[in-house]
Structure formats: C-alpha cells, structure tokens
C-alpha cells in the first residue's frame, strides 16, 4: 500500500530509537532472571507431560518440590538431567518419580556431563519436532493458502471445547480465517496449566494441551473442506505465559496473544515476572513461525481513545522493539490497536481511520491486529452491528492484517452461534463492497486526517523518549499506559521470579536462540 499520510520519518526514527533502548533494558533485566514458568516450559519442551492424581501437572510438581527452591536460580535442566540419569526413565517418567517422592531432585548426583548431554539431546530433538510443526503449517499454507487479508478472526468461548469445535466449524463455513479460543475467565491467574480436554469454563474455555489438539485437529479437517488453511489462536499470557507459548508451538497454534503489558495492566500480574516470562515466550514463538498479537487495543477500554491514542502507538513501538530482539520477524507481529471512540462524536470515523492508516504505514510489514469497538457497544444490537460495519470499513480502507470480528452482542455475552455468522456476513459484505477503496482515495494535505496522524505520532515520540528516560518500570508505576498504575513489586507472581545464578543453564533456550540466530546464553 502506498503511503497516504506523509508521516514524519524523523519522528518515526526517534520512536524506534527510544523504543529500542527501552527494549534493551527490559531484555537485559529479563536475561538476568528466570521464573517458575520458564523452567516448567523448559521441562515441557524436553518432553514432560501429564499430571498427578490431583490433576497437578508434573512440571509443577517438579518445579515446586522442596529441592527446587535452591535449584531454580541455576535452572532446572541440570538437576533434572541428573534425575533422568539416576532413574533411567524418560522425561515424563522422571518427573513422575519426583512427584511420587521416589526421587529427591536435590539428591540426584549423576555425572554432570552425562546429565547435560541427556538434556541437551532432548532439547535438540524438541527443536527438531518444533521445526516439523512449522513445516507442517507451511505445507498447509502452500497447498491451500489462507484467503485474503485482513484475516477474519473470530472467537469461540463456550467453555466446552467440543462445543467450541462445532462453533468454530460454523465460523469457518461463514468465512472465518482465524479461530481464537478464549480462555476461561481468570485462567491467566493460575500458576499451572490444567490437563486434559475440558468442558467446563466460563467466559471461555480452558487452554490445555489436549484442548489445543482437539481444536487443531478439527480445524485441519475444515481447512480441507474450505480449501484454505484456518489458523488457530490462543493466549500466551498470564502466569504460565512461557508454557502456553511452548504448548502452542508444539500443537501448531498459529497465532498467540502475547503481551506482558496486558497482564500487568489488566490482570495485575507482577511486571518483573511477566516481562521475564515474555522474553522466553517470544523466543519460543519466533522459531515456531507463530504470529503474536499484542494488547495495546485494551488501553482504550480504560483510557480515552481521543486522548490516549499515542499511548497505543508508543506501546506498539515498544512491543516491536522487544519482539524483534527476541527473534520474531516483522511478519510475526500482530501489533494491536482498536477502534474505541464514541461513535456519536463528530468525525470520529476520520480520526479512527487516521490512527489505523498511521499504524499501517509505520509498521508496513507487520500484520496489524485490529480490534473492533467494544467499549461503546451497548445492548442495542442493531446500532452495534453498524458500529462494527464502520469498523470493517476502516479496516479494509487501511489494509489491516488481522481483523477481529466485532459482535453486535459485545455488551452482553460471549457470542452465540449466529452472532458470529451475522458478523462474518456483514464484514465480508462491507469488505467486498469497498475492497479497493484504499487504492482509490487519498487524504487531502492539511486535512484533519493527516493532522491527527501527525499529532498522535508526535505525542508518541515524546512519550517514548520519556519512557526511555525513566525506564519502563517507572512508566508503568506512573500509570502512563491505559490510565492504570502498577508497582514493580505488586501484583501476582513475583515469588516465581528468580535471579539467575552464575551457572544458570538452559539448553532449550540455547537451541531456541540458535534457531533464530541469536547468541546462546548458558554458561
């Protein structure tokens, strides 16, 4: 798409510079730490599966065992490797032995070299398996394609994975290109991932490895029917962010919401924890060819879209900078933004289009994730359907990459089966009717649209340079994003953060970094 807004390249450069500095500092912080979930993710990646009789995942049993406390700063891998050598069992078997109290992790004294070799081999094997998953996706995409952009993204959230499958299939028939399974309310606060296929959740369906499989299998089936590859999306967020990313990568999820800032601001998750988790998670997704979605769109639910538009842009720059440094490539960055102005404000459509077009031009290679109106949706489903239509128009006019479907029942419930059908139908109609609108039109110089974009960019530049100066933690403490203030020690999950000791070793991370051509870190 040819640029229309004549944005100031110098401002963009300054933004990237400031965001880069912020990212470096955040990643430096993260590189000095590990977390319970990173270590659990590591175990999962080397093959630990299953749960104990109470449904507690074995990875949690291992990482939470008494001995682990002192082990975690060095990483679980070496100790676990020794345990494997000691038991002679595979990864899951070893973990079960630890869980059953048959083996004290602190007391496994097998030879260090053998232990390292054992785990390193598993890590390399995991890397291979994961590459195969990415290859399988690419084969699908080559063979079937996935339809035009923006990709139409709809959620299922019945709470029952089997019901979700039915609904997802119906969505695909109606044109959906990405199916996102929303998680059960507050799953992100759980410090473990439930096991097995689940049929009870509220406001969403539990994210479990089995559920991922059930849905991926079903989507593969309908992808064939529909003659296009349908992507699956879930959340790599919350206290289990690194494990979610890992499971997603293993089970061929294609898109994952992944944004520490969301957890901090909207879930009150501790910032040290989740920013550390995020660095690992993004690495996992990078090599897996997963598209991550970020959550700046959410800022405008608590802050005002007119006033705080620049915070969205600033956050996009930060997310981009962090992501690129974790090995993600631009095409993997579904940077979030949203249409959240009061639809009764004069010219709000122009301002929204200005924002969307601006983001498009600033991140030309990234498939922006565009979020529909939610805040100003009411119980008036008819009016809401039209708000969503304006959104669809804005989206197609500005070349968005991933288009979240607005639902007329947004203010009421997670969607009913026909809500999605109607939403897809209307969206497809609007996008077809105005398919090439963007090619056809230009924005007048000196008009409101160009002014708005320039103003938002200028304010984002100021903000980023300020965040660079004060540091991200301080900025979060001052409530600069989403009008929400959080403290570095507040929120959930801080106790799962561990400063790495000198000898920290994580062969999985090394394999991952290697896969995306980042230098290794262990030893």
């Amino acid at each position: 798409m040819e640029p229309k807004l004549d944005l100031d390249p110098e401002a963009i450069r300054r933004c990237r510079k400031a965001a880069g500095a912020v990212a470096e500092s955040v990643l430096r912080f993260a590189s000095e730490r590990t977390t319970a979930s990173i270590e659990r993710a590591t175990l999962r990646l080397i093959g630990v599966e299953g749960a104990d009789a109470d449904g507690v995942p074995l990875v949690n049993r291992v990482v939470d065992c008494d001995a682990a406390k002192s082990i975690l700063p060095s990483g679980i891998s070496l100790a676990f490797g020794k345990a494997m050598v000691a038991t002679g069992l595979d990864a899951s078997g070893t973990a079960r032995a630890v869980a059953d109290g048959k083996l004290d992790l602190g007391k496994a004294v097998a030879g260090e070299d053998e232990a390292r070799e054992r785990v390193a081999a598993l890590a390399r094997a995991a890397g291979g398996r994961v590459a195969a998953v990415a290859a399988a996706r690419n084969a699908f995409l080559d063979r079937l394609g996935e339809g035009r952009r923006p990709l139409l993204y709809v959620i299922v959230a019945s709470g029952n994975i089997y019901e979700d499958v039915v609904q997802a299939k119906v969505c695909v028939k109606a044109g959906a290109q990405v199916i996102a399974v929303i998680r059960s309310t507050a799953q992100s606060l759980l410090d473990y991932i439930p096991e097995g296929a689940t049929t009870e959740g509220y406001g969403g369906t539990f994210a479990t490895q089995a559920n991922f499989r059930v849905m991926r299998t079903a989507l593969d089936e309908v992808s064939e029917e529909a003659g296009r590859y349908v992507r699956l999306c879930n959340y790599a967020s919350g206290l289990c962010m690194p494990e979610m990313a890992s499971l997603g990568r293993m089970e061929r999820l294609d898109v994952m919401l992944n944004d520490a800032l969301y957890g901090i601001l909207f879930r009150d998750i501790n910032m040290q924890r989740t920013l550390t988790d995020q660095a690992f998670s993004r690495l996992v997704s990078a090599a897996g060819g997963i598209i991550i979605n970020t959550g700046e769109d959410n800022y405008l639910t608590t802050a005002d879209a007119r006033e705080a538009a620049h915070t969205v842009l600033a956050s996009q720059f930060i997310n981009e900078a962090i992501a690129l440094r974790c090995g993600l490539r631009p095409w993997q960055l579904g940077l979030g933004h949203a249409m959240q102005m009061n639809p009764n404000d004069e010219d709000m459509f122009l301002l929204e289009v200005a924002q969307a077009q601006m983001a498009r031009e600033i991140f030309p290679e990234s498939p922006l994730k565009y979020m529909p109106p939610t805040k100003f949706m009411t119980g008036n489903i008819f009016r809401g359907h039209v708000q969503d239509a304006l959104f669809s128009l804005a989206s197609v006019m500005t070349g968005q990459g991933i288009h979240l479907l607005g639902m007329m029942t947004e203010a009421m419930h997670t969607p009913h089966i026909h809500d999605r059908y109607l939403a897809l139908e209307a969206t497809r109609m609007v996008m077809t009717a105005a398919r090439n609108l963007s090619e056809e039109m230009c924005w007048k110089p000196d008009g409101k649209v160009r002014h708005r974009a320039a103003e938002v960019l200028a304010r984002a530049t100021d903000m980023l340079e300020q965040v660079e100066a004060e540091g991200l933690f301080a900025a979060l403490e001052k409530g600069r994003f989403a009008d929400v203030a959080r403290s570095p020690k507040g929120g959930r999950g801080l106790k799962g953060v561990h400063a790495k000791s000198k000898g920290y070793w994580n062969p999985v991370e090394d394999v991952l970094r290697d896969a995306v051509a980042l230098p290794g870190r262990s030893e």
Partner: protein
Amino acid sequence: MSMTPTERPEAPKVEPTGPEPHLVKPYGDAMGDGAVQVSFSLPVPLSDESREAARRLAGKMGLTEPQVYHEADLGHGFSYFIVYGKCRHTVDIARIVVPRVAAAPMGFHEIDEFISHRLGRKVRVIGACTGSDAHTVGIDAIMNMKGFAGEYGLERYTNVETLNLGSQVPNDVLLAKALEFRADVVLVSQVVTQKDVHLTNLAELVDMVEAEGIRDRVLMICGGPRITHEVALELGLDAGFGPGTTPTRVASYFAQELERRWKAAGGAPVTR
C-alpha cells in the same frame, strides 16, 4: 506432543438436545440453552415499570431468565426493548411434514425436450401480477427472456407459448385473457401482502375459475415472497413458489404435472 493427526484424540460429537434429538430447541452456545433474541415496542412510555412489563412479556412467551438488554424511549408514549431469554419450548421436528412441490428438477433443454416428447404439443402459459399489485419483477423473473439468476425465462423455451399481462391485472381480466389464450397454465404473482390482500385475491381467482367451469383444465400456480406451496394448496391452487424461485423449477413442475394429468385424461386438451 506428537503431530500426526491419527494419534490425535477423536472429538466426541456434541449431542443435539439431550436424550430426544427430535425435540429441538433454540441454541446459542450450549445444547439446550434455548437462547432467543426478541425485540418489540410497547405503547407505554419508558419507565422501570415498562421495562419490567417487557421482561414479563418475554416471560409469557416462554423465555426463562428474560433479560432486557436495551431499552429506548421512543417518545410520545412508546418504548422499545431488546430482550434475550432462554426458550422453554421445544418442537418435535420428527412430526413435521411440509408439503413439497413434487417434481424432479430438470434443466432448460431437458424441459423443452420433455414437453415435445411427453406432452406432444406446446404448453400455453399466461402470467400476471394481479389486483392492485404492481410488482412485476417476480413474474418477469420467471417469464421474461432474460430470466433470473442465470436461467432463461419461459419466453425463451421453444415449447412454451407465453403471454405476460404485466401488473395490476384484475382477476376478471386475467380469466378472460386465459380463456382467450386457452392457457394450460396460469401464473399469478402476488407481492403486496398488507392485510392479507394476496390471500383474498388468490381465493377470488380460484372461485372465478371454478365458476367458469375450467378449473380442471388449467394448472393454477402462484408465487411471491410470502407464498409457500402449503398456502397455495390451502387456497385451492395447484402449486405455490416462494422467494428465490427460478424458471426451471416452475417449468419442471408444470411440465411433469401436465404430463400426469393429460395422461390420466387420455390426452392433452386441444388448444384451438
């Protein structure tokens, strides 16, 4: 963790409405949830009481947990509500039998050939949009050369002779013209349905055709957006066609039905 589809768990099928799958009930996002959306206005101003009245009304409609999600004061003594609830009712779909136009679908050429081989002479079809109805697009879709939805209209068939009287044709004029034209098939379109004028109109036409003593000589077919085959039968016509009807569907029907009748009667009625 393996990736081959065969090793994956089979997704169990979700059962329709519990133990008795033929008892259907609305579905929102869980079998049996009964989710229904309703909207209406009430001729009372908006107030806590009228909102409650809306809720209770939904309750009387058999919706449990009725929830008023939107309300608007329309002014001048009216209010508007959007209500959701869970429908208690079920319908036994196994007991539903809907009459269908019984005719194997045929294509344009096939029909033309069917007529020449099986009926032995051209079929004469007269059409009109009757009463004060001026909506000719529907009848034209069936009859005009250019046709509809990618199909040719009856005028294009070699073995169909047509006469399209157009709009606003009084029943007596249609009858007179049908006699004059010696029509085998009468096509009547009715689009305007206010105060059930289409039913009155069609019933009157059937009466007139019967009074004329030619009811068994003509196939009477009606169509329109609110017409169903069932309604047509109730009114005493032979067939009815609703929205989206294409010319071949109508022609397949009258060709086959005329064959059946003419066979039974020992031959086609002479035309002139």
